[in-house]
């Protein structure tokens, strides 16, 4: 399986200094783990791809388990999508991984969708775990849903998958990996600058989603109101027998798709 991981020029959330994006390092880890699982088979590799004017500290991804990093050098404000699309098309990859949305903030998280549309590949969002599917040429994806729920999906490759921050933490940085890894620089053909499609709308007050306790309610009631609104569903059992309670909990976990033995 040939895997590409898209790496964007991030910034440290506090210091503001250039830094790799954490969720993309997590994607890299999923890729490396997956490549290790196909152990020994030829044609199993992970490539990092970055399109932008400078590599900066993205070279550090080589210390996080990446062996080969391709830098598609673009002009300052050029749109990275065409360069990436061309490289991905030419690369013959089976799987492309990206973060769900670079750093957050003003990052829209749309680039993976643009690329998937361009490649006419399926895209699957918010992976928290990856494993080879049972049938050859498929991938089993554990998708992160709200409130810690998980759903297992199987996609046919090639596919583009975005990774959720709930995925396992990045592989720790190893300085020697940085020295061992290979960086390849390619000039990307000139592309127009990104044209933000912004639409202006008048401000419209939106209904508050958090349930409100009656004014003057106690702190406990306010807390209950806030948490109950956020935790709909389920059944309320009062003083159940232990067996019954255990069965209910297991059933609920299964309904959420969590593995139970």
């Amino acid at each position, binding site marked *: 399986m040939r895997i590409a991981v898209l790496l964007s020029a991030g910034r440290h*959330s506090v210091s503001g*200094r250039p830094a790799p994006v954490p969720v993309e390092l997590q994607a890299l880890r999923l890729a490396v783990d997956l490549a290790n699982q196909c152990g020994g088979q030829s044609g199993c590799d992970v490539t990092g791809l970055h399109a932008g004017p400078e590599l900066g500290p993205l070279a550090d991804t080589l210390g*996080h388990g990446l062996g080969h990093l391709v830098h598609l050098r673009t002009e300052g404000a050029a749109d990275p999508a065409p360069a990436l699309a061309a490289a991905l098309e030419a690369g013959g990859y089976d799987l492309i991984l990206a973060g769900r949305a670079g750093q957050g903030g003003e990052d829209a998280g749309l680039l993976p969708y643009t690329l998937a549309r361009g490649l006419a590949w399926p895209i699957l969002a918010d992976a928290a775990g990856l494993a080879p599917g049972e049938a050859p040429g498929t991938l089993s994806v554990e998708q992160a849903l709200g409130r810690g729920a998980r759903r297992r999906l199987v996609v046919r490759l090639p596919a583009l998958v975005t990774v959720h921050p709930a995925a396992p*933490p990045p*592989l720790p*940085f190893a300085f*020697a990996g940085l020295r061992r890894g290979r960086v390849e620089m390619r000039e990307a053909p000139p592309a127009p600058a990104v044209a933000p499609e912004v639409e202006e709308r008048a401000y419209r007050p939106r209904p508050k989603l958090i349930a409100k306790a009656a004014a003057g309610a106690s702190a406990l009631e306010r807390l209950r109101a806030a948490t109950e609104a956020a935790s709909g569903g389920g059944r309320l059992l009062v003083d159940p027998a232990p067996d019954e309670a255990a069965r209910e909990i297991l059933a609920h976990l299964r309904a959420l798709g969590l593995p139970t033995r």
Partner: protein
Amino acid sequence: MTDLALLLSFTVLAMVVIAGVLAARRARLWRVGRAAKVDWAAGLLALPKRYLVDVHHVVGRDAYAARMHALAAGGLLAGSGLALLGLIPALGDARLYWWLTALAFAAAFAGGGMVGRRRYPTKPARLSGGRFQLLPFLLAAYTGGGFLVALDASLGGALWPLGWAGLAVAALGGLGLALQIDRGPMRHAFAGAAHLVAHPRPGRFKGERATALAPLDLDAPRLGVALPEEFAFNRLIGFDACIQCGRCEVACPAFAAGQPLNPKRLIQDLAASLQPGGTNAAYAGSPYPNARPVAGIGGPGLPIVGEGAMIHPDTLWSCTTCRACVEECPMMIEHVDAILDLRRFQTLELGAMPARAAAPLMELRYADEPGGRPLTSRTDFAAGLTLPLISAKGEAEILLWLGEGAYELRYGRTLRALVTLLHKAKVDFAVLGAEERDCGDLARRLGDEAGFQRLAAENIATLSRYRFSRILTADPHALHALRNEYRAFGGTYEVVHHTAFLDELAAAGRLSIGALDQARITYHDPCYLGRYNGEVDAPRRLLDRLGIARLEMERSGKRSMCCGGGGGAPVSDIEGERRIPDIRMSQAAATGAGIVAVACPQCSSMLEGVTGARPAVHDIAELVLMAVEKADAAPARPVEVPA
């Protein structure tokens, strides 16, 4: 010369030959190690002094052991030497000569008796069993037998039946001892001497503390140590020098806390992995507490760390780098250097640091601060106080290095006290503010030498832009890095710890100090101040100025016990049975003191984390401020009432 004496001389000769062959075989193994710069001539010349003064200074802390060793080793060497020289006819024919020889053997026999007395009927836990339990018998046989032969020779053969019996046991015991030279207890004799000659930190014998870690060449083909052959050869000699006395084990805080580390076993595992086809099976001392299973096999070209090797990674990461083991080791072995060499490989080559240590190292890389906090908020603790910035002043007499503790609420109080005292004493000082990066101590102890070297270089570049005469810090880890470890990267500074500085101010009369009445205080020495930098007097002098009763803990000064906060141990967080700060706090409580005085942000947070009824924890700066405020509140001069 009697025939028996001649045979004794030949026995000794045979022993020397056997021991020589075995020792040479072992010494050949050392040559697989990496090259190291060693001043052989100076080392050889200094050997007698290093042995008689430096080693015996350590051995002498246990008076029984010192007497035992002087008798056994001195008598054995003298007796054997004399017996050997007896082959020279002029000497061997003199009866008086054999008298002397008998005397030496008698002394050695007494020493051997003391060895036995220590191990039987019950062997202390810190001593190893196995071959070591045989040692007193071999010693007794050889020296007792030698004594009888020499006595007989001194009487001209009058006791020949006894002499014959003596010769038989002497030969048995002597050969037994000689055969132990490459693996058994006797190895420490020749490896120890070689270690003293080629010691990797010769400064230790010249009165230096010599505690800075050696910089790692980041362009080397492989970083750190994974295989025995990647240790410098003189480190390998050091491992072989271990006599398994267990003093390091007793001192080790991680061992006491039931974490899987025992410095003695660690050194033995390292020594065993040098042997081709080596295993850890022969070891007969205390194990690693709660040992994680390992295969226990090794060889010069086989990995040392890993579940399939000799040493489990958890063992490596349990160490707080407190150097208590090094301080106690009579063979002057450098445990911490070995642990750091191994950690460097794990971190730099494999990225295999403990899970929770990865995040702080990452934050350090992109934010210069292990908690990922903004550098600008390092000075937040001082809200409401005047904290001059050196970037505004350009120069200052004293540059105050705040350190990591500044971000903590508890330690912020200490720093506020220190800043208040500096203002009261009208000290011309300033801080770097947002320009101060982490000093790199944590990165370095976790094996991230690349991270440390980057931080050191950037801090040195920042410091070079300002003029100041001294750096003042309340953090002994920063003190050690700035004073001792930046030097290798071109940063030479005069760094003073706040306890020494406040003591100076008090001595010069720049602080008027009142008395903290009735307080009973015990002082906990930070490892990086006491053991690493030898500063144990100034904090005590300062405390004594406060009019308090100062009590000493069972372990104090350079032999103090660690709080558990160093070496990245809090982030590595290797599971044990107890917490190190709890042990230390119970030692403090045992003195009956109501206050433990500390002088380090790590100690402060570790000891403050102890739950239950316990003495209060205060940094010395806080205590000094209390005393100064007492003096301010009291009338400046007692009013003289005319009689």
